[in-house]
């Protein structure tokens, strides 16, 4: 019932290995005239330049906000590019090509200076809003200010706030601070130039400005929280209406000009997004052709799975990695998991196959994971520090369990120990996963009690607040993670860098704070050599796994349905293994 909402998907990896397609699961090509099972994973299918028609989309829920400055959902970032242009974006392509950052509102990628601490972008000339006014660099600056520094817009990421140099007196955002210069670390020497000044060298800044938060907002038109229903468009489509919980309709922005925009095709005349639709009904309509796309891109419902895997439908199905890792964090400050041997015992004894089944099996759930970085993320290196063997009847085999017991003995807990495992109460599959892990660990005497918290408060109030975790002795925490930008740094730093530990709302649930790892992150992000960075991420991954603080469970995958009517369908890994909406069109 409850779909997984990508909390923070902005990216996935660069290396889409040959194994990826193979992992798609016995591609038999299917029958019928369709392009074939998994065909959109690494190439755009149904390519077309035919304009016209209405693209019909649906969502079982709603935006967090369609305001580009107040959204965190991956699909929303993907979708927002239809009515807004950020400085950069991901290349409209399928597979690994989609991870490439290309300029959008900017004429080229950023020019670093000052050793990577200053980034300069030039804007294209002649880009106009749907009211005919011209986009200026001040609007981009204003967009970043309002999205990162105001009290009102809280839903989006706050990376700019984290990395940009703050004013001498902390900047309070444009709603409170009405001074003309605003945030001094963003400079706009002229209407077509914008300069960002960072606290530290940051080689991957081009990815950051690819977020929807650089989509320009004219200050005069900003209405704060109400802007979501009066968005000013800089993209090929303008927002005709947005009714929360009901519908959003887009039509052509007559002031958008193809000559200013080399990456967009702008094919459909209209785009309609129905909100708060029933998930099963969305699937039925997709299959019947009454709908073109499930906009959230997290896969069909369990009940639909059997239908889409039938021979006649299978050619219209893709089974990509979603850029997520589902894993279990072991908190290093909760006894006895402060002892690496106890953590290692958990690594061996965790029944990952059961966890995989609980999450929907190899197709809807994903592949069993052994690394923190998923295969679709830049820096992924295949290794397995804690090899397990499974019995045919299910469960980890005795030899593996024996290894776990040895580790328990080394930890001084030969009889096992007791702790708690947390899961999000409104995510039944995660709760099922917790039960799978619970029964597996019981075999070596590790007794865990399941505690559940609502997803909305999971990080802010409970497992993301170290004090709460310590007070309640929650040693194991289930979570899912996808990168906020598509590199090893983007993926790993928030969950394993010691400086990402916060009193509340943190994602480093294990509270891993190893100086060597922290330093490795700093070294990597200031390194301008991309290949060197990629290697460093793999090393960091291994270093983390040696600490045994994260138990990787599955590399998430989903069964996506691609109706015949849709043209230019390709899986973008930039937004976590969903279809790229930038150039999607319809045959009728």
């Amino acid at each position, binding site marked *: 019932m409850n779909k997984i909402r990508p*909390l*923070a998907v902005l990216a996935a990896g660069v290396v889409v290995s040959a194994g990826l397609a193979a992992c798609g699961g016995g591609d038999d090509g299917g029958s019928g005239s369709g392009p074939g099972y998994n065909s959109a994973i690494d190439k755009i299918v149904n390519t077309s330049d035919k304009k016209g028609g209405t693209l019909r989309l649906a969502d079982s829920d709603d935006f967090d*906000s369609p305001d580009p400055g107040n959204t*965190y959902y991956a699909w929303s970032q993907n979708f927002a590019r239809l009515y807004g242009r950020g400085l950069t974006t991901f290349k409209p392509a399928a597979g690994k090509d989609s991870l490439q950052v290309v300029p959008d509102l900017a004429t080229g990628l950023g020019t670093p200076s000052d050793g990577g601490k200053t980034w300069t972008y030039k804007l294209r000339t002649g880009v106009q809003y749907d009211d005919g006014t011209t986009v200026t660099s001040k609007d981009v600056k204003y967009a970043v200010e*309002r999205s990162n520094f*105001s*009290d*009102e*817009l*809280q*839903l*989006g*990421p*706050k990376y700019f*706030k984290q990395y940009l140099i703050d004013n001498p007196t902390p900047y309070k955002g*444009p*709603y409170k601070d009405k001074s003309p210069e605003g945030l001094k670390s963003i400079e706009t020497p002229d209407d077509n130039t914008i300069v960002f000044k960072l606290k530290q060298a940051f080689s991957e800044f081009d990815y950051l400005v690819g977020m929807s938060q650089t989509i320009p907002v004219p*200050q005069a038109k*900003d*209405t*704060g*929280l*109400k*802007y979501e229903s009066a968005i000013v468009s800089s993209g090929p489509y303008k927002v005709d209406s947005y009714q*929360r*919980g*009901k519908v959003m309709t887009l039509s052509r922005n007559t002031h958008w000009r193809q000559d200013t925009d080399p990456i967009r095709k702008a094919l459909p005349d209209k785009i309609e997004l129905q909100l*708060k*639709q*029933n*998930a*099963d*009904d969305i699937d*039925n309509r997709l299959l019947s052709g009454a709908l073109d796309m499930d906009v959230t891109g997290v896969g069909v419902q369990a*009940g639909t799975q059997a239908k889409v895997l039938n021979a006649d439908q299978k050619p219209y199905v893709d089974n990509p990695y979603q850029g997520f890792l589902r894993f279990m964090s072991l908190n290093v400050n909760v006894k006895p998991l402060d002892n690496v041997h106890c953590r290692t015992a958990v690594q061996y004894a965790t029944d990952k196959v059961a966890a995989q089944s609980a999450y929907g099996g190899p197709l809807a759930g994903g592949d069993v994971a052994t690394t923190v970085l998923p295969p679709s993320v830049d820096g992924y290196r295949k290794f397995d520090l804690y090899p397990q063997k499974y019995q045919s009847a299910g469960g980890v085999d005795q030899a593996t369990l024996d290894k776990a017991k040895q580790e328990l003995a080394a930890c001084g807990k030969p009889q096992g120990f007791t702790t708690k495992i947390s899961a999000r*109460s*409104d995510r039944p599959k995660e709760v099922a996963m917790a039960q799978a892990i619970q029964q597996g660990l019981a075999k070596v005497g590790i007794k865990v009690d399941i505690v559940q918290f*609502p997803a*909305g*408060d999971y990080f*802010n*109030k409970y497992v*993301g*607040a170290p004090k*709460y975790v310590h007070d309640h002795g929650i040693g194991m925490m289930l979570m899912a993670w996808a990168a906020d930008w598509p590199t090893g740094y983007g993926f790993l730093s928030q969950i394993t860098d010691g400086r990402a530990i*916060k*009193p*509340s*709302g943190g994602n480093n649930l294990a509270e891993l704070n190893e100086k060597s790892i922290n330093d490795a992150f700093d070294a990597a992000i200031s390194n301008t050599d991309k290949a060197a960075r990629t290697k460093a991420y793999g090393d960091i991954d291994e270093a983390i796994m040696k600490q045994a603080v994260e138990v990787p469970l599955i590399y998430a995958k989903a069964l996506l349905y691609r109706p015949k009517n849709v043209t230019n369908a390709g899986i973008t890994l930039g937004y976590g293994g969903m279809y790229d909406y930038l150039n999607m069109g319809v045959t009728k």
Partner: protein
Amino acid sequence: MGPFNVLAYIIRRLIGAVLMLLLVSLVTFGIFFWMPKLAGQTTDQIAASYVGKAPTAEAIAATKERLHLDQPVVLQYGHYLKGIVAGQDFKAGPEVDHCPAPCLGYSFRTSQPVLPQLIDRAPATLSLAAGAALLWLVSGVTIGVLSALRRGSFLDRAAMVIALGGVSLPIYFTGLLSLAIFSYNLKIFPGGGSYRPFSEDPLHWFESLVLPWVTLAFLYAAMYARLTRAGMLETLGEDYIRTARAKGLPEKTVITKHALRSSLTPILTVFGLDLGLLLGGAVLTENTFSIPGLGQLAIAAINGGDLPVVLGVTLLAATFVVLLNLVVDVLYAAIDPRVRLG
């Protein structure tokens, strides 16, 4: 009993209703703010729920101020009440948004005003509840009366067995079962979540509600058949029914004019209560059939700790109950001359 008495009575009842709504909202407030504090949560922890993805200390402080969480619960409650009477201002960014009275506040999660959300969701619940109510009232009462009149017959026994079965079935089971059979296998009716507002597509509206109506009505019809039968049998045993027969009235007159009228009046009371409770959100039915009504809204709000929305729904629900009770009582007084409003 003059019209002034009735008016005075209604006014008195309405004052009582307002008091009751105050109580309901106070309890809701208590559950959300007082209970967590009892359970050991700090104001910062409560506020952390509503901060967004970056709950820094300053963001939490700002949120506390924005949502008035830093004030004592009594003041917050006062603020809420003031909003209902005088409207409320909300800082939406560069400008201040004004929500006119009666203002039920803004969602903690989405920052949307609550009242439009309620108005948006109410038609779905109303469609569901009213349609089902009509169905169960007609079928339940008819079956109950027939059963009572043919007491001990095959019809009676069969109807009562089915009715007892009906009241023993959880709605989410019958709902799932009917979906599995009539929607998934036979494909006669659309599946769960296919609800469309009447204003958009009347035919689809009807189609999508048939299963929920029938499922919900089945449960209540079973209950009403039992109630009606019991009431009818009770009435048929009354002395005045014997008198009516002794007067030589035809049996039909005895049943329709004398027995039915008395036995249906208690049903009316129950009906008022049931319909009132349903209008406030048929939680289980809406959940099972994914109908975007008040019940679904409430569940989502509860799970999200979205107090203003929860308050809005509970107040609306309690209002429905109180108003329908009032209507029923006035009607009752109109039907039964022994009842005096007062």
